[in-house]
């Protein structure tokens, strides 16, 4: 392919509108440019639509417990990455990394989760564009 054709192809590709953004409610409530990581004990896992939810007790250095909640993708997306409804259960210790709530409370959108041994739960993290 000639350089002229390459340039024409590049121009054509640049002109094609692409849709690669997360759903808008995600960007409204969570900060896609920040990351937060918490380690805690699972107290509840809801494998529900439109989104799932994990409740965590996070022990602070002074011994007190901080309540956190992590919102997940819809079950159909979780299943695609190898999750099941019993992939975690109350009492499990997990480390969750994700995008923090814009209002600074203990609430996040889950991007990745690992078990107590550091093994990823599911086959891959959830990319920003898959957030709905």
């Amino acid at each position, binding site marked *: 392919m000639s350089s002229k054709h390459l340039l024409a192809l590049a121009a054509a590709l640049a002109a094609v*509108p692409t849709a690669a953004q*997360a*759903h*808008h409610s995600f960007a409204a409530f969570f900060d896609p440019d920040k990351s937060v990581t918490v380690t805690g004990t699972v107290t509840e896992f809801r494998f529900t*639509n*439109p989104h799932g*939810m994990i409740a965590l007790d996070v022990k602070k250095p002074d011994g007190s417990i901080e309540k956190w909640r992590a919102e997940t993708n819809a079950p*159909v997306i979780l299943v695609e990455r190898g999750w099941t409804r019993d992939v975690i259960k109350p009492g499990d210790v997990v480390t969750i990394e994700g995008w923090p709530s814009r209002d600074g409370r203990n609430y996040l959108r889950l991007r990745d989760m690992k078990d107590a041994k550091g093994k990823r739960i599911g086959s891959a993290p959830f990319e920003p564009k898959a957030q709905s």
Partner: protein
Amino acid sequence: MRPCFAFAAAAVLLACTPGVAQSEDSAHPDLSGYWGAPIRNEPMPADLRAKLPPNTAILTDTGAAEYPRGEYGGLIPTAKAKAKADAWKPEDEMTLARVCMPQGVIYDEQGPFPMEIEQAPGLIVIRYEYFDQVRLIHTDGRPHLPANAPHTKMGDSIGHWEGNTLVVDTDHLEPSTITNNGLDHSDNIHLIERYRLGPDGKHLQASQWFTDPEMIANNGARYIEWNKQPGHYIQPYECDPSLATEYQGVKTGAAN
């Protein structure tokens, strides 16, 4: 009952059953089964693209991805549609009143959710996992519903076969989103879809074309592809609106 008499009785019963016409559906491709979610956008095959009327923008948001606010994949909103889109706020979608409200078939069918198809003489039923929605496509030759019939999220669909392609014509849709970023269609939108099996028989291919002069100055289209997964069944969606309580009172950001 003797077998020959039983067969004759069944034939009479079928012929007299309202809405079950004697069609040639068995001679057409079998689209039935579980079709896995379209996760990503694929390019529309050239022959399907060639069937699109002129002045049609092909959207590329099939699957999980969406257009940024103010971008509509080449669709040209009318002044009325643009004013509504400009006033749209994504946080409103996560209120108790809205979080579990189903959207219309034009947006629903391209999202990352599976569906199941049941194919019978004169009738094709599509069960979408997304919001537990059910759609009837009549292939018995009936016309569309009268103009004053209710408009719904699934609309009124009639289908016919053109060779190995099922062509579905849908109207009577109630207003809903097109791109989930504020651009809505009106209740006069007209949808035409073409469904066919891919060359390997393991993929279902569909083009979606729509026209809505009240809201879009040109026309729109999408290409959607599902993969067959035998032995799977769609799951109940059973949307839980309590998620919206997590968002109540939250200060939202501007990056949307």
